[in-house]
């Protein structure tokens, strides 16, 4: 979705609008050239592209985690300035590429965000957490299991459950299926799809696997700084 689609800025009450994004990395490479992201829910969008093309930078720019030039961020009828980035991120939430964990138990890792000021009246549901953990095959650990020693794939599944429990209107996921066996990857992808259509929400995933791209609502390819 490149600048030609910026005319779609008015995306309705629940729509996401972000752009036009320009980003030059510390090496001086201009990775993103005037990209505008504009979606209405329900949407599951998969972004592909060669490695180093700026996919992670794009998600971080939308989330406001790098110093990309983003003149306008809007969700529904509210715009968010740089000063309101924490609030923006509580609604446009990024699942980081390396699926980091905070020190502590699985419960700590799923519940920490609910104590933030921006959680407003969201409440952590243990029941929902257990159900989701079961679906991604992490239920055998139990909520009080420490996260030390979880494998990369397990951390990615935990990260996905964290994102789904948080249930933001826009979920950005940076390679959420990496390190997963094909069957588990399929389960996780279906969870994302289900989330985007049931909530309904906008889910934007950076993925390498072609077979998942075919199952998405929209597939975009990032090349030479623009989305095609």
């Amino acid at each position: 979705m490149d600048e030609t689609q910026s005319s779609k800025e008015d995306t309705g009450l629940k729509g996401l609008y972000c752009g036009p994004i320009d980003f030059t990395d510390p090496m001086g490479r201009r990775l993103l050239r005037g990209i505008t992201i504009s979606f209405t829910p329900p949407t599951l969008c998969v972004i592909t592209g060669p490695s180093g093309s700026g996919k992670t930078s794009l998600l971080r720019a939308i989330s406001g985690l790098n110093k990309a030039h983003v003149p306008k961020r809007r969700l529904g009828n509210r715009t968010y300035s740089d000063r309101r980035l924490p609030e923006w991120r509580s609604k446009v939430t990024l699942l980081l590429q390396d699926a980091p964990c905070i020190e502590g138990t699985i419960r700590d890792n799923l519940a920490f965000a609910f104590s933030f000021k921006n959680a407003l009246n969201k409440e952590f549901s243990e029941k929902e957490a257990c159900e989701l953990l079961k679906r991604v095959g992490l239920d055998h650990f139990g909520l009080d299991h420490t996260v030390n020693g979880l494998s990369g794939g397990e951390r990615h599944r935990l990260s996905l459950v964290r994102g789904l429990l948080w249930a933001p209107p826009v979920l950005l996921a940076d390679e959420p299926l990496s390190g997963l066996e094909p069957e588990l990857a399929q389960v996780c992808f279906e969870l994302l799809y289900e989330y985007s259509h049931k909530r309904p929400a906008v889910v934007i995933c950076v993925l390498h696997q072609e077979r998942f791209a075919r199952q998405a609502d929209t597939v975009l390819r990032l090349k030479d700084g623009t989305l095609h």
Partner: protein
Amino acid sequence: MGHYIELSGFDLFLAVGLIVIASVISISLRLGLTRSLMVAASRCMLQLGAIGIVLKKIFQINSPILVIGWLAIMLVMAAREAVRRSKSKYRGINMDALSTMTFTSLVVGLLVTQVVIKVRPWYDPQYVIPIFGMIFGNSLNGICLCLDRFLEYLRSRRQEVELRLCFGATRQEAVIDGARQAVRTGMIPIINNMTVAGIVSLPGMMTGQIVAGASPVQAVAYQIVIMFMIAASNALGAMLLATLAARRLISNYGIELNDK
């Protein structure tokens, strides 16, 4: 009580013998410390000698401006030393250390000298200079420990901080764990000191007062005030510095460790 044995130049000369013992050990064990030991001993004598002369003058003139001026010099030196001792640095660290020490020493120092001890006149150098000096010296240690711990946290737990930011944490919420750990680290030495005070060691100030002829009970009373004062200044200093460092190093875009 009220009298003490004066030390003459010859007594000090005899004390040099103690350094000779340390040097002989260094030479016989080939520690390679002889030169550093000599330099350190000479610096110690020269610096303390100079301070003695300056303090004597300040005590004689007994002017508030001189006392404040001297405290300001001590403050700047302490802040510089705190930064120098920290293993890692960032842009703006000098300003943060100076503001922290200024605020901490003003709050705690004025409280102790003017409210607890009720020094009259308020600037009496006999009390004000040693007490502020102790605040500077001790909060310097607390600040160094706190700063090292906090910066280490930001480096090693960068992803955790980012993870919190991703879920809508404010800057404070994103680093609160690190700040807690840092302040705790800054306070551990004084807690340890208070725990063993009088059992394992007699604290320096108390020893000094007893040698100078004060009654042990009064010396103890002063020491208690001083220890509580150090606890307050360490807690305040560590908390303030962690806050200032967080403001500088965490922006809305994440951690920005601008290493110096």
